[in-house]
């Protein structure tokens, strides 16, 4: 019998693998596709001096913001701060280290971490502060900057469904950074809305093969907070 990947809850899934000063990747774009329960588990655990790699740092009152607010994060590696006052204030006042990455460079660095590629070249950021101190080289007449891989001690990701092997399927734009981060953690924990029996996921439609997933929990419920609810009026049906 292979070791079982399914854990009862976030606290159990985080047990024995957290340590102060560790690096954590957390999936999500804004508050969409966030590992809500695992973030709450990190808050309860109190692990500190974290380096957190995540596109954003939650939003006022939600997600990774709660760890920032609780003083657990020493450094963020992100692409976007906008609309997160605490994040901006802590950074501008020198209380938080921040490594800003172009979003695509961030995503590719994470993919490279999972794919065994220590460095790659991109045109993104050439001639900007992002390229400072990094090798810049010409290929076929254009300049490219060298970026390096990112890996984490633990990656926490949110998917829609998992099977007992840890195969994951994501839903809509809640996919975002989750599949890439799932490949780049020494240990990867996935939380999902539903754990389905073996055989219920179509092998052609698995987004993250189970090889990348060490532990899985099914979240009891999902808040899935919307940051900007934008709608259009429904036309009068019988007008």
């Amino acid at each position, binding site marked *: 019998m292979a070791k079982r990947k399914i854990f009862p809850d976030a606290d159990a899934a985080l047990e024995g693998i957290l340590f102060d000063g560790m690096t954590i990747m957390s999936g999500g*774009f804004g508050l969409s596709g966030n590992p809500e329960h695992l973030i709450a588990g990190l808050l309860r655990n109190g692990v500190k001096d974290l380096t957190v790699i995540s596109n954003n740092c939650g939003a006022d009152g939600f997600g990774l913001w709660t760890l920032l607010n609780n003083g657990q994060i020493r450094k963020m590696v992100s692409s976007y701060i906008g609309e997160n006052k605490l994040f901006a204030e802590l950074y501008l006042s020198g209380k938080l280290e921040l490594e800003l990455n172009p979003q*695509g460079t961030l995503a590719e660095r994470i993919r490279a971490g999972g794919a065994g590629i220590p460095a790659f070249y991109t045109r993104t950021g050439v001639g900007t502060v992002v390229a400072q101190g990094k090798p810049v080289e010409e290929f076929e007449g254009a300049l490219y900057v060298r970026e390096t891989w990112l890996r984490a001690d633990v990656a926490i990701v949110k998917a829609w469904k998992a099977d007992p092997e840890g195969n994951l399927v994501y839903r809509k734009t809640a996919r975002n950074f989750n599949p890439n981060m799932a490949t780049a953690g020494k240990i990867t924990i996935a939380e999902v809305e539903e754990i389905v029996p073996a055989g219920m996921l179509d092998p052609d439609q698995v987004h993250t093969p189970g090889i990348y997933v060490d532990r899985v929990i099914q979240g009891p419920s999902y808040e899935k907070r919307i940051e900007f609810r934008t709608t259009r009026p429904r036309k009068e049906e019988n007008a």
Partner: protein
Amino acid sequence: MPWTREEMAARAAGELQDGFYVNLGIGIPTLVANHVPDDIEVVLQSENGLLGIGPFPYDDEVDPDLINAGKQTVTTLPTSSFFSSADSFAMIRGGHIDLAILGAMEIAGNGDLANWTVPGKMIKGMGGAMDLVAGVKRVVVVMSHSDKEGNPKIVERCTLPLTGTGVVDAVISDYGRFILDRDRGELIVQELASDLDIAFVRARTGIPVRAA
């Protein structure tokens, strides 16, 4: 009279061509989607992992798992597709997007663009903007021509930290529609807002402005 946001968006829609794959930035660029001419089809890309953005949802269709890069709720179309962030930026970096329309704080005659921070004062982060300006085939900036103090935002050399170098192809401001001649560092007028003349624009622009 300077153009309104919607008028600027409508002018920016003139940049669209049939079959184009387009990325629209946050703010006025997002409004461009409302002005796509009836006789052309474009596919909108959202860098958080969606190709084929549909209209905003009806109130009962809102789905927190379906947002655009501005974190606004959106919908899909019958031919939409979802993908990861790495795949999304592979698409952008690889030169597969025909056009990006985005905002700016400052642009220079050489095509440099700044739109992500004012050191010590404001930092929002570059998000996907650096990748977009570096990877997309054509970059069109939509912005107010002057800042809140009335200073030109189109300048000889950018003073703010850059988003990209030599990347801006065209500008649509509240004063008009322009092509940027990066070699000469000049703005070439394509259209002016009604009642504005080229002298008015020249007085409010940090680089030479010439008639088409």
